[in-house]
């Protein structure tokens, strides 16, 4: 089957107009970038709806979009767990309980909060791990963009510049890197956030026609139901045992692994998303950020999961060929979105759909670069390399860090191109480092006794236990290596998801117990006065300055929670 698009003049024009706007936003923001706070913290001045949309958009990179469409084809409605239980409770918790400390403490980053609450080594560990992780994530986004672009927009580029061969892949990589670099150097974090908001609307408006026509062809919800196995049509009904549902996880693993450890670990401690809330203009806006993000988040499955299910249903009917993975007989579900775009979209809307995909790749890069900038400048450069310099100096460093971040991302994109396994391996290590983080935050924010030594060794211990758990288990059918089992084989999980969820549960529990124990054995080094504003029991309750009751975060939280429960019941 044909795997390239024939883009018309109008499609190219739409893509070009989008690029002009992206660069224009950066250019228009340039004159406001007068100090490091404006550049690296967006001046803490943005309205809640902007930071709220950026909050979920930063997570809606193209890897996520393509991956979730693929999950829709693999796991069906079970995928909505990543949108409901795997996101909403954590977002509500962040807004109501954690945001007062993040925003109120005036910390400029998550690592800086760790330094204020615990100590230097805990901050250092988190800052370095996070900086490396963001550069790699940004590089993977770049790699994926160049890979997709050369397939769907073949340009027949074969240049030879000073003896270096430049093909399509290199061309698209450079173009995307240069665009991201320019708008990030000009407008800093604000540029990244504004483009995430733009990307959000592009995805909704660009993908809605695809879902509309897809549903028409298949015959709506009933049509999908008639062509997919029943256990793909429910989110909870088949979670009684792991073997009965396509995800291969039972309800406890879903609730504890995904809903608690992984979700809280990601949404409440990952600086990439938390940074969006910290850029808000007031405490009230900061607390509303995750809640405003949660509203559209719950409806995103209609745009990303449903297309995957439509594609599989059509394929089961014999109406659609999903391309196979190279050299195998396995369907490559990562191609679902491009295949459907090609199937339904004539010139015009096709350009908008492609633009939406490109936008999500680029903001995947920019989001990571913006978080990298802030952490590198404040938590590595200012903390360990050159403290006590003028603000002008740090603004300059922030700008240069953008250049370094993009260059490092280009390098990692090429690493990803040549050694696919290296990237899988690195992502695995990041997962190990991330899993125990929430334990340190939970204890640190709600138990004033928790000490820095305890948090640090809890994190290290949790990371090691994640590695051990992974090393001693395998998903069913997996072979020893990156999938696990490299220390021996003690247990086999029904699926990779089950293994991931349980790795997280083990890492979190180890970190929690270790931190508890070491806290009891070590001396509390920070006085209650120093911990004011950082710990729940020592912080005066935040008064919300919203005029009306329906503008308060608490009310919004109840609405978000209620919608999530109703949706979960409908798609039971």
């Amino acid at each position, binding site marked *: 089957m044909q795997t390239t698009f024939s883009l018309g003049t109008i499609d190219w*024009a739409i893509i070009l*107009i989008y690029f002009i706007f992206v660069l224009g936003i950066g250019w228009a923001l340039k004159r406001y970038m007068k100090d490091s706070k404006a550049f690296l913290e967006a001046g803490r001045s943005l309205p809640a709806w902007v930071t709220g949309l950026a909050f979920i958009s930063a997570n809606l990179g193209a890897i996520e979009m393509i991956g979730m469409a693929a999950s829709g084809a693999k796991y069906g409605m079970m995928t909505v767990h990543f949108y409901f239980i795997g996101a909403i409770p954590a977002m509500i918790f962040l807004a109501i309980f954690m945001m007062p400390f993040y925003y109120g403490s005036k910390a400029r980053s998550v690592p800086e909060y760790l330094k204020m609450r615990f100590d230097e080594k805990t901050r250092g560990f988190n800052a370095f791990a996070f900086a490396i992780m963001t550069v790699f994530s940004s590089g993977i986004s770049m790699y994926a963009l160049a890979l997709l672009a050369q397939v769907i927009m073949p340009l027949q580029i074969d240049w030879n510049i000073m003896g270096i061969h430049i093909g399509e892949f290199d061309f698209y990589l450079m173009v995307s890197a240069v665009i991201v670099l320019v708008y990030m150097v000009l407008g800093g974090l604000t540029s990244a956030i*504004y483009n995430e908001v*733009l990307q959000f609307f592009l995805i909704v408006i660009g993908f809605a026609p695809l879902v509309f*026509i897809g549903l028409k062809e298949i015959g709506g919800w009933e049509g999908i139901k008639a062509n997919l196995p029943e256990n793909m049509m429910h989110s909870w009904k088949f979670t009684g045992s792991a073997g009965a549902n396509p995800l291969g996880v039972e309800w406890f693993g879903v609730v504890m692994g995904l809903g608690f450890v992984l979700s809280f670990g990601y949404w409440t401690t990952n600086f990439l998303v938390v940074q969006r809330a910290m850029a808000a203009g007031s405490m009230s806006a900061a607390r509303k950020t995750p809640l405003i993000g949660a509203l559209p988040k719950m409806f995103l499955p209609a745009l990303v999961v449903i297309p995957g299910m439509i594609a599989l249903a059509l394929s089961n009917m014999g109406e659609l060929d999903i391309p196979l993975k190279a050299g195998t007989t396995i369907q490559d579900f990562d191609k679902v979105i491009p295949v459907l775009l090609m199937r339904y979209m004539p010139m015009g809307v096709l350009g*908008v759909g492609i633009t939406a995909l490109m936008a999500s790749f680029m903001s995947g890069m920019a989001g990571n670069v913006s978080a990298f900038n802030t952490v590198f400048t404040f938590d590595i450069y200012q903390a360990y390399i050159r403290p006590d310099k003028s603000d002008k100096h740090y603004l300059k460093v922030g700008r240069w860090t953008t250049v370094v971040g993009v260059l490092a991302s280009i390098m990692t994109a090429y690493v990803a191109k040549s050694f696919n396994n290296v990237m899988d391996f690195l992502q695995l290590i990041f997962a190990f480092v991330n899993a125990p983080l929430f334990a340190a935050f939970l204890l640190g924010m709600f138990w004033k006794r928790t000490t820095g030594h305890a948090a640090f060794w809890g994190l290290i211990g949790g990371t090691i236990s994640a590695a051990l758990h992974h090393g001693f288990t395998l998903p069913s059918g997996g072979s020893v290596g990156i999938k696990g089992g490299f220390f021996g084989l003690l247990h086999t999980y029904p699926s990779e998801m089950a293994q991931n969820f349980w790795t997280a549960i083990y890492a979190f529990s180890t970190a929690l117990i270790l931190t508890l124990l070491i806290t009891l054995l070590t001396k509390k080094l920070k006085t209650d006065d120093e911990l004011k504003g950082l710990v729940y029991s020592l912080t005066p309750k935040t008064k919300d300055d919203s005029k009306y009751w329906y503008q308060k975060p608490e009310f919004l939280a109840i609405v978000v929670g209620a919608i999530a429960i109703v949706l979960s019941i409908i798609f039971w």
Partner: protein
Amino acid sequence: MGLDIKIPIGLMFTIFGLILTILGLVTKGDTAMYEQSLGYNINLLSGLIMLVFGCFMLFTSRLFKKKKEKK
């Protein structure tokens, strides 16, 4: 931040909306082109939605509010 994000969003979707609406009108009745979208003139439909959204963003942006205040 000094720039109201509603202005670029509004402008971009108004331009996209205009392009697609005009394209949809020009290609109206082109059954071969819209065969793949099951006969729906998807450009016209999407174009109109984008136009409405783009204009809404512009009218609620600072651009419009300032003018109002001047009057």
